[in-house]
């Protein structure tokens, strides 16, 4: 990998983004990359927009991603994915959970989806039913992030191997929740 791989992970407080960034960082370490990420806690987490910057590569410096330089927008919510398009360039891939957390003054769901399709184009937009699948199959919508990550790994949208991610989950997730997380990760391969 010549340059850093830059991910903007986005969603709404409470969607499990902090767990997800830990898994990705740990998997990056396992793969031998230099890893750096930046997240926000506190007020911004309380139902507000959460935007996490993740970088891995040979040598990562600034923990923040510049506008136009994201390789991947990993969106757990559609409006937030649209919001973070400012970090995207023409080659940026958008992997988005087709899930909306409505809010006062927010855009209608159809408008958000139309805007995303127009903005990103067919080739780079992956709209995935992560919340729906996790709710239906595991009765746990909050696993949608792990499902989305497994999608990225299986389709090679993210330069991390399945083995590294599973190992990362084993290293980080408390035993009580580990099996469920692994199940969510495995769904895509079943």
């Amino acid at each position, binding site marked *: 990998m010549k340059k850093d791989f830059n991910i903007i992970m986005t969603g709404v407080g409470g969607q499990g983004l902090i767990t997800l960034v830990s898994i990705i960082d740990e998997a990056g370490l396992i793969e031998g990359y230099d890893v750096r*990420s930046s997240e926000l806690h506190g*007020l911004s987490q309380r139902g507000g927009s959460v935007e996490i910057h993740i970088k891995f590569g040979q040598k990562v410096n600034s923990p923040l991603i510049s506008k136009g330089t994201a390789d991947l927008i990993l969106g757990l919510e559609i409006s937030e994915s649209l919001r973070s398009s400012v970090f995207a360039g023409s080659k940026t891939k958008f992997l988005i959970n087709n899930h909306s957390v409505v809010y006062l003054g927010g855009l209608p769901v159809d408008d958000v989806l139309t805007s995303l399709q127009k903005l990103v184009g067919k080739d780079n937009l992956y709209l995935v039913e992560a919340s729906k699948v996790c709710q239906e199959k595991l009765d746990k919508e909050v696993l949608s992030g792990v499902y989305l990550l497994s999608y990225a790994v299986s389709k090679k949208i993210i330069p991390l191997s399945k083995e590294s991610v599973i190992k990362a989950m084993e290293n980080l997730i408390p035993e009580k929740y580990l099996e469920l997380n692994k199940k969510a990760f495995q769904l895509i391969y079943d």
Partner: protein
Amino acid sequence: MKKVLLGNEAIVQGALKSGVDFVSGYPGCPSAEIGDEFGRIAEKEGVYAEWSINEKVALEASIGASFSGLKSLVNMKSFGANVCSDSLLPLAYTGIKAPMVIIIADDPSCYSSAQSEQDSRGFAYLSHLPMLEPADPQECYDFTILAFEMSEKFKLPVILRTTTRVNHQRAIVQLEERENRTNRNVGQFVKNPHQFCTMPPRVLEMKKELLEKINKIESFSEKSKANKINGKVNSAKIGIITSGVSYLHTISAQNDLGLNLPILKLGFFHPLPKKKIINFVKNFKKVLIAEEVEGYLQKEIAAICKEENIKVEILGKDLLPEIGELNSEIIRDTLAKLTGKKYKIENLKTIVTPKRYPRLCEGCPYWNIFPIIKRIAPENTVFGGDIGCNMIAGLPPHNMQDYLFSMGASMGISHGVKKSTTQKVISIIGDGTFFHAGISGLINTIYNKSNPLIIVCDNRITAMTGHQQNPGTGKNLMGEDVIEIKIEEVARACGVKNVKTLDPINKEEMENTVKEFLEKDDVSVIICKRICAILARRQKQ
């Protein structure tokens, strides 16, 4: 061993490596995970850890530990420095017995800070104390260890000043082996009023001792690897001096532009390595100071150059913003301007997405409290706000907050408004904030015969900063069962006659009580007691 750690986790590891015995603090964003982590591991690591009721008491607890010979770590967010400063300044005079490190975590851009974009580096000037600034988790680890060493050597507490992008940055940290200990150390207080009591005329002698120590630390700073130079100094016309996370942004900005300007990265904010700075700046025509928020370094360095008669243009806040955090784009654009380098980035067209404000969580008991108060309150009622989840009252759809200041400030301001007007005043505060700084305001309200209606939103936890225990919850940081201090009993003991505790889910009771208490001639307190929805869900699991 290599591990991915959050800056805050790296500070914990650095403190453990240094053999910390005693940890006190108050939870705030972005420092809260330091105390949280100690709460989880304290017993296993043979460390004592507490959430104190506020930062002043937290600092004082660690002063007691240090005077008793135990190594201590104090942790707080930016505004905590204001609260503890009353004891911080005399602590600089007395110095310490056993090493002490104080973490002060600022929040440039105010991601999780209501009251101001405070640059706590100013406290180094006010207190004279040495202050270090790490850039990333590795430096959080290394500098915590360095701070303990310096504290031991110079007998002063050392401040580690961090920012959100350092505390909440995850990166790989190389950890050294450390000894495991399971038993807590026991200290001994050896009487020494000569050192521990500040009283005139001795206090002025102490000031002299402090200034002498700082002189010695300046020589130490000159030799320290924490102040380092990147790049070849003799070949460039422009140099850069930077500190904290701005250092990492600067490297990225230079990489974007294909530049390799020499960088002096300062790990010491105070005292500055003057000679090192002089030897660096004298090579250039221009030096850019890339620092966040205030232009402290710029002013200091410009003054040094003037004093030494060095002809160099010191640039900083004339080109970089004084408001908001820096990033590599801002520094890249500034460097491009300075060097004439061109840089083009193509990003997608931006579509404006309406702002998503923080909001109360699903099932939050405050969803019951705010609308009822707003409905019952007569027109022109003044609503006081305070720090914590209850400050969401100021955001849509509630929009019921007429002032918001610092922890506990609603109490004092509401009293002042009530004394100055004939309007009704309803003052809203959370349980954690009530214990932190609300009680003294309540006592003042009673003492001076004021009559606002005080609503304590008691959700049984300090929720906003990540669900920390407080004196009202019956548990402390190390998970011990403790006496549950009841807010209604505190209010009654202070002389409040109109006190009612209710569950806000009972709408009618809530409505009737608000109506009744608004008509009282003396102060009233309603405690709306219902557990935080997130905590309730967690307890069920």
